[in-house]
């Protein structure tokens, strides 16, 4: 098919031809086209369907404000719903499909909705679908949901990558039209670090769409020359295809650069888009203005467009919106559309102007009147005009430009809750009130609509922002036409006259909203959905406000606006996530023995960001339990080794180190001897257990504190808080050393014998008794640390070496331990052994348990001040019969005792009112041959031996259990001290 509406000139590259498909049909275009311009060039006006009534829709605008021409761009996993045809850059092979239709675009079965529109007025759904109650979810809602929505996601994983980045500048200029370019020139020449960002792929703004001259050059040529000069300044960064999406606090702006969207697919390794966080000292907003439509009956047919966009298509893209064009205007600007298209040889049916004193033309007819209706099934064919004298005229036209005046793009001036101000001269909101700090506004965004005013204000804004002294640079010569406009929002008596084209909100709906008392602009928006479409009301809100104001008998500024929110244009969720998805969602933390564990075939488990070996399956083992049981039994029988590097480690030094530990632990540390380790329980200030671990005193003024894996960071933060904010003059220094040391637990009756083969010093029971610690050397001189502590309840040690030697140490332990059948064990066996031993861990230290609950109430020293000690004494935390940690075992050894199950009395009701407690941690104990659990039980200390029910209705479990001591294995702790 030929491009029947293609004109001469413009800024498309007619030497290249791109093939593209829309709804499966092939067309040609040129590079420099958008999908919208290419379709118009090919005579395609029907591009979409409206949200509610499924009315046929064509393109309204030539920019990112487009509400109508939304398509599904690309196919397969790259399918991108709701993409504005007006911003899709043409490339060879482009493929797009229309959306939100049942059947074809021409014969959308859901267009039936339009026939019933009278029943589907604003808010109708709030008043019906209530009976019978069950029908809402079963019948009505599924139908509504299916019909609603716009485009579809492919539901395949997005194959593209997205990047994030950070930029710093003195001046960010948003928008590269005449004002933005002039601001950039002024600031760039002055040597400031400047970022100039524009959402378009071609900088120049309206200069590309108008036939104005600047000095002696065409506006577009001046823009190109200016961009070329800026590109040569090393201190200016030009960012086209970059939308600034929001103004955040303290001069931080979000911007999305579409790096690859103009390509068929991104190059390998290259991002599709980049999210930039721009830190700027000052900002010039030069975002231009958006033309507004006029509401009249059936003003939504394909072919009815913003008058300025008809100019854009003609002047920039060399496309006639149709071969017969009419204009409906309330201001002088609309006449430019007729003049420009006439000059390009397009037939002007007429310019209809609501003003009696409209400028006349020799080239085309100017009518004083209003467009009162239109006709045409899938596109505009005729416009009906009511002339001022009351007579009717019918204009034959395939395109009708609406010129209702311009709205400055104040969006970003309001991102920090500023409200715009009303400017009577242009009948529009302009930036007002409190702008985001550091922001100034130039050009049409500030209501300065002439090219000359834009250029001047751009230069002035840059000068002011940078505090430059001296005279403004000379402004080039440019048109400086005044705004001659008669506010005109809608044609009297119209009803189905569209305000929000996408959401199908008409003048009638606004009237109904007012009638029903939804009169605040926010109520109007929420009740009618006006302005809630993908354009967020850029082309619709103003008309709605004006009508509401009229109905309420108020001035427009009294009615006010809804709130402008980021993002300025809808932003891919993918780019906001950047690379942090899939395996890269969070960084991985690997222990020094990770590679070795992989070689052993270990199964890993996520613990925070750590990956830890969960168990080490051996050939022939068919179930993880088999593996874990073996690891536990082997450890308790001989010796096992487990990587415990992930435990948090904090180096605490200084003359007041012991006093400091006395503050952060509820139990005492002042008297701990050098060379000894002590268990410590840390409370939050509210008296609840925060974390536990050990503190090893390596010297009078040097401790190594361990935390649980999960709490390493919050505990460190807390310790710094105590140090800096509460006791600022203690001589104590903290630093995390979690990752500096590879640390392994070596546990079991043969652990000493094994370590004696590695450690250079005497570690006999006398020389190195239970809870001893020391700096040692191993393997003939490597510095190391040894702690005789035990989580498993066995004779056990933890040995630490600098991380770089962690791999080698693990291999050495396995090598020298072969004679003891040393068994590596993972977190699961670790967990089994600690449950067998009754040690509390994360499931017990759940942020609501007290030392008392844990059976450690007596540890809270009353003789000293420690964090949490005072509030731990509150009555609610010391109530009679409060829960205590207990052991739970099944009466029938084959029964499970799952964590999360609740304890109930053996007889009596099973409900929340009779809840006695719950199981916190559970496992199968290979030593006892049945499942065991730890739990919290009301008055638990006094209920040893009691038979109870453990119920988990969620998982269908109800078993008889016995309450026992939490110390299932070696309750006297003899093995530890062996």
């Amino acid at each position: 098919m030929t491009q029947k509406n293609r004109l001469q000139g413009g800024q498309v590259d007619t030497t290249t031809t791109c093939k593209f498909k829309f709804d499966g049909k092939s067309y040609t275009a040129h590079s420099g086209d958008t999908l919208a311009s290419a379709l118009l060039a090919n005579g395609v006006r029907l591009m979409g369907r409206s949200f509610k009534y499924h009315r046929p829709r064509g393109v309204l605008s030539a920019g990112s404000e487009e509400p109508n021409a939304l398509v599904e761009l690309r196919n397969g996993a790259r399918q991108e719903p709701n993409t504005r045809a007006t911003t899709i850059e043409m490339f060879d092979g482009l493929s797009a499909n229309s959306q939100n239709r049942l059947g074809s675009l021409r014969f959308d079965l859901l267009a039936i909705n339009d026939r019933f529109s009278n029943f589907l007025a604003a808010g109708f759904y709030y008043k019906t679908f209530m009976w019978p109650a069950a029908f809402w979810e079963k019948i009505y809602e599924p139908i509504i949901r299916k019909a609603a929505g716009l485009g579809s996601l492919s539901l395949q994983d997005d194959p593209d990558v997205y990047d994030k980045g950070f930029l710093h500048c003195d001046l960010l200029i948003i928008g590269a039209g005449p004002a933005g370019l002039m601001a950039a020139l002024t600031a760039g020449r002055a040597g400031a670090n400047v970022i100039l960002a524009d959402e378009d792929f071609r900088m120049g703004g309206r200069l590309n769409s108008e036939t104005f001259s600047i000095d002696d050059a065409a506006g577009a040529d001046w823009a190109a020359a200016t961009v070329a000069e800026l590109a040569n300044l090393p201190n200016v960064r030009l960012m086209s295809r970059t939308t600034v999406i929001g103004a955040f606090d303290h001069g931080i702006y979000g911007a999305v650069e579409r790096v690859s969207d103009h390509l068929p697919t991104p190059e390998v390794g290259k991002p599709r888009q980049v999210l930039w966080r721009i830190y700027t000292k000052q900002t010039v907003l030069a975002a231009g203005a958006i033309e507004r439509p006029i509401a009249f009956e059936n003003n939504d047919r394909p072919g009815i467009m913003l008058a300025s966009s008809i100019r854009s298509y003609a002047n920039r893209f060399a496309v006639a919106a149709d071969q017969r064009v009419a204009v409906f205007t309330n201001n002088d600007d609309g006449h430019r559309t007729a003049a420009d298209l006439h000059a390009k040889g397009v037939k002007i049916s007429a310019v209809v102007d609501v003003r009696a004193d409209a400028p006349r033309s020799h080239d085309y007819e100017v009518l004083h009147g209003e467009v009162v209706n239109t006709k045409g099934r899938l596109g505009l064919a005729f416009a009906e005009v009511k002339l001022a004298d009351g007579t009717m005229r019918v204009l034959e036209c395939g395109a009708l430009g609406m010129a209702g005046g311009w709205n400055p793009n104040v969006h970003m001036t309001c991102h920090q809750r500023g409200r715009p101000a009303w400017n009577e001269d242009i009948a529009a909101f302009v930036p007002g009130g409190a702008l985001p700090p550091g922001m100034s506004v130039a050009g049409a965004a500030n209501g300065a609509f002439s090219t000359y005013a834009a250029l001047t204000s751009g230069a002035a804004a840059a000068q002011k922002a940078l505090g430059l002294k001296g005279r403004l640079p000379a402004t080039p010569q440019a048109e400086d036409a005044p705004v001659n406009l008669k506010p005109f929002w809608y044609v009297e008596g119209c009803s189905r006259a569209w305000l929000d084209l996408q959401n199908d909100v008409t003048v009638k709906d606004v009237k109904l909203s007012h009638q029903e008392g939804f009169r605040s602009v926010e109520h109007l928006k929420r009740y009618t959905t006006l302005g809630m479409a993908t354009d967020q009301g850029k082309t619709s809100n103003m008309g709605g406000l004006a009508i509401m104001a009229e109905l309420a008998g108020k001035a427009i500024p009294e009615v006010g606006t809804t709130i402008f929110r980021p993002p300025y244009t809808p932003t891919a969720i993918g780019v906001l996530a950047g690379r942090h998805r899939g395996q890269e969602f969070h960084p991985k933390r690997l222990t020094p023995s990770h590679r070795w564990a992989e070689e052993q075939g270990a199964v890993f488990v996520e613990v925070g960001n750590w990956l830890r070996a969960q168990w080490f399956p051996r050939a022939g083992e068919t179930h993880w339990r088999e593996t874990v049981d073996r690891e536990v039994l082997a450890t308790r029988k001989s010796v096992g080794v487990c990587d415990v590097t992930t435990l948090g480690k904090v180096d605490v030094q200084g003359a007041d180190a012991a006093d400091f530990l006395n503050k952060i632990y509820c139990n005492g540390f002042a008297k701990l001897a050098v060379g000894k380790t002590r268990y410590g329980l840390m409370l939050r200030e509210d008296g609840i257990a925060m974390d536990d671990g050990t503190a090893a005193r390596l010297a009078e003024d040097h401790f190594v504190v361990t935390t649980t894996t999960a709490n390493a960071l919050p505990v460190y933060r807390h310790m710094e808080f105590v140090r800096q904010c509460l006791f600022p003059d203690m001589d104590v220094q903290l630093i995390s050393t979690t990752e500096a040391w590879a640390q392994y637990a070596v546990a079991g009756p043969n652990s000493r014998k094994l370590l004696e083969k590695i450690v250079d010093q005497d570690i006999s029971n006398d020389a190195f008794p239970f809870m001893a610690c020391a700096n040692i050397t191993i393997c003939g001189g490597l510095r190391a640390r040894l702690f005789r502590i035990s989580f498993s309840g066995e004779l056990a040690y933890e040995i630490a070496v600098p991380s770089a030697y962690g791999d080698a140490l693990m291999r050495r332990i396995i090598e020298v331990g072969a004679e003891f059948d040393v068994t590596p064990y993972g977190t699961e066996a670790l967990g089994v052994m600690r449950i067998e031993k009754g040690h509390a861990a994360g499931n017990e230290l759940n942020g609501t348990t007290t030392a008392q609950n844990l059976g450690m109430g007596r540890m809270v020293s009353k003789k000293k001040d420690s964090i949490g000690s005072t509030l731990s004494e509150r009555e609610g935390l010391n109530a009679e019969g409060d829960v205590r940690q207990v052991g739970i075992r099944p009466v029938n050894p084959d029964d499970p005792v799952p964590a999360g199950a609740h304890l109930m009395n053996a007889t009596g009701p099973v409900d929340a009112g009779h809840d006695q407690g719950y199981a916190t941690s559970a496992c199968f104990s290979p030593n006892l041959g049945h499942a065991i659990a730890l739990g919290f039980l009301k008055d638990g200390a006094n209920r040893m031996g009691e038979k109870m029910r453990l119920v988990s209705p969620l998982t269908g479990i109800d078993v008889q259990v016995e309450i026992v001591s939490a110390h299932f294995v070696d309750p006297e702790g003899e093995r530890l001290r062996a």
Partner: protein
Amino acid sequence: MRYSGLRVIKEALTGHKGWQPAWRDPEPQAAYDIVIIGGGGHGLATAYYLAKEFGQKRIAVLEKGWIGGGNVGRNTTIIRSNYLLDGNEPFYEFSLKLWEGLEQDFNYNAMISQRGILNLIHSDAQRDAFTRRGNAMILNGADAEMLSTEQIKARYPFLNTDDARFPIKGGLAQHRGGTVRHDAVAWGYARGADSHGVDIIQNCEVTGFRIANGKCTGVETTRGFIGAGKVGCAVAGSSSRLMSHAGMRLPMESHVLQAFVSEGLKPVLPGVITFGAGHFYCSQSDKGGLVFGGDIDGYNSYAQRGNLPVVEDVCEGGMAIFPSFGRARLLRMWGGIMDMSMDGSPIIDRTETEGLYFNGGWCYGGFKATPASGYCFAHLLAKDAPHPTATAYRFDRFEKGRMIDEKGMGNQPNLH
């Protein structure tokens, strides 16, 4: 005027001329028996139940702006009763039951849609905790189901189960959970309250309390003094500001919570889903937008807007579980101000001033609580005794050490 399908048809055929304002716009009277401060969901629901269920007369709701303009119009519309602790679960289950009959009760279609909520599980410890929670729900008479990864994958085949940094290991579902058209809740309660004679007075900001001899006798407003037998405050987000006029310091901080909606999409998500290894939850509105959110920004704020780091954090969470959402576009982000309390649970209680009652501290869970909060607050105002499901929501629980701390984060509001 009663709403019904027949009425809609009749009006459609007669030019929609018969529709009346959904609520009156009365001038404030000199005094009321009960004045409710706050025309949000909770305040309007309180007035509605006071009038309808507790036979109270002469009630006014004072709203500083437009009704429904606070958090009831800014939330992510989720309802559920998947709570753990004794002090909470019966209350939220009561609320869910009220939701289930609400539309017929107040004759307004709030699009209550019980398409279910699913909390994903990513670790054994999380499974243990959710098992305990699910059991607590069932023992309290609510519904809960533990789903396997396979069951979840069948329901959400596009969930990331193959290449996840934190693999999905199951999920706790509450099928009676779901979503509600949030604005319609405010409007439905307003219309219902109005029809029972409640005066809803918009653009009327309370600037002070008149307190004499330990008793509150009314409120100073931008529209003059309004006398009151009892005053109930339900202005979550602004609680500290309001109650400071009564000389109170509250156990809470105000924080901004952001929420997000995508462009409209054809249906992909049937119910609500929450990520358990990051900050992200999501549902899809009837209109087609993905409605999602995550963590609070984390600093005290009254600004009703947030910042980029949380936006990115939430979208990272979204992409972690739904890698296909990358090509959907975020349409709008906004913020609401939360009363973040010291244990993550609310307060519905008398104050030390006679005649002055308080409802607040809802953290980010206030929307789902709306019916029960209104009902229980009405109960307290009408009978001077707490409703049986709300006995634990007292001011003095912090001093006495009886916190209701679901997350176990202690007295740090931004962690709840």
